[in-house]
């Protein structure tokens, strides 16, 4: 647990030390998506937007925490520093997941403000529990699949593409097979757990330090 928290704190500090432009970008994304959620009518696309949002936000964090360190050699130092490999994985995953939830929560809160300000747009009228739940589950799945895929593939682009494919496949299945409410988040959560196990095994292997190919 100490290792996990240590890595989480390190990632947080590292995030705070990012270039100011990054915060502006995230702020822009949060604002745009809050408007999307606020103006979302009962078109049935609400859940899709949440999943897309999870992918956009989470892939940025997952790529940073799981790929960037392999490029600088920092992961090698970390692996030989006395922190357990499971602790490294858990700390990084916790950070990527928590940041996704934080930004998702921010968008949601902002969308409620828009909804109050713009009632004529029907803002927020269709916002049930399933959207945010799907977002959280999708963020979890993307985090863990990102962790596993970043070890399996040398290119972060491939990781991103596979993540997009996975998420879209889930959305497509839920629409085509008319899953009952709550089924999609549950499936995403289950997949996330599967990827967690795969990621834990991958982190124990030697490919975890393979060079990144851009």
């Amino acid at each position, binding site marked *: 647990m100490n290792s996990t928290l*240590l890595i989480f704190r390190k990632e947080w500090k590292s995030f705070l030390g990012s270039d100011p432009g990054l915060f502006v970008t995230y702020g822009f994304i949060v604002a745009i998506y809050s408007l999307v959620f606020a103006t979302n009518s009962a078109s049935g696309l609400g859940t899709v937007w949440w999943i897309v949002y999870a992918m956009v936000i989470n892939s940025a964090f997952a790529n940073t925490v799981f790929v960037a360190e392999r490029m600088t050699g920092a*992961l090698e130092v970390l692996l030989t520093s*006395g922190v357990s490999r499971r602790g490294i994985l858990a700390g990084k995953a916790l950070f990527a997941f928590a940041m996704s939830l934080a930004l998702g929560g921010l968008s949601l809160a902002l969308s409620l403000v828009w909804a109050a300000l713009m009632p004529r747009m029907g803002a927020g009228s269709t916002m049930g529990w399933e959207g945010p739940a799907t977002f959280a589950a999708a963020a979890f799945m993307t985090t863990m699949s990102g962790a596993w895929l970043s070890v399996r593939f040398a290119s972060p682009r491939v990781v991103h593409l596979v993540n997009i494919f996975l998420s879209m496949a889930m959305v497509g299945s839920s629409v085509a097979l008319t899953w009952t409410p709550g089924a999609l988040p549950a499936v995403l959560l289950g997949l996330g757990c599967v990827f967690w196990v795969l990621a834990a095994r991958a982190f124990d292997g*030697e490919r975890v330090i393979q060079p990144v190919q851009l």
Partner: protein
Amino acid sequence: MTPPALTIQHLRKSFGSRPVLSDVSLSLAPGTLFGLVGLNGAGKTTLLRLILGLLRPSGGDLSVLGHTPWQHEPAYTRRLGVIVENDGFWGNLTFGDNIRVYAEAKGVPRSALDEYLTTFWSGIQICTSPRKVKLFSRGQRAQCAVARAFLGWPEMLVLDEPVVALDVEAYEHFCTLVRQARSRGCTMIISSHVLEPIETFCTSVGLLKDGCITDVVAAADASAGEPWLIVGPGDDAFGTAIGELAIGSVTFIDGSWRFAVCQPAEAIPRIIAALVNRGCPVREVRPDPQSLRSAVRRSMQRP
């Protein structure tokens, strides 16, 4: 009898069908300073990564400080100090933040970290710089990597190209730390294309070639004797005394007596004892820097 700090027996490592290390055997007693040399692509970094537990051996036995590196025990990695190929810093953090995270991971108490930084790094600007590490020059980052590696005086230091970007002052500082680590009994493996630190500090040097390690110093012994230097007075009596104990000619160059011996591990202590018994003041004894370079060159030329 003290168990070896590192034991490697018939170690093999392949990447797919490409063998990198075919049969490496090595044993290092605690406190040994071992130099690892070899051409580019000889497998030096691969060997170091195996020792660090970053790669899994394809065959053979590897034991470091009583641990099997590939088992990834934090109790093992906490006893290591490393300099890796890339400097391995978190660029968005300052050096202070970087080393604090590292210290916590290693279980080095805050007081010990502060004492280390105050004692050895207080005069170095980068250590107190509020700038992020990503804004440092390559040399500054290399200096930071040295600071991080020696933190907590780990039992085993694995240094991959530790001096390649250091300036004169930083190199001197590195030498101070190596001496300090040596006095504390740290075992050290230095892999470097810059032979100066290996010549200066290493008691044993291995050449990695064709997937195997050759003991360079021993290889030189077998042929023409190993050149050594003794710093002492330039009078004939001193030179004669050395000449009686060494083989071949003894020459006085730049304040040092240059001579050759067979099996220096046994001969050098004998020569020093004899000189001291005769009342000859011996100020410094070390291998001739030219010897390693020539021995490496000879070893690489062998079929």
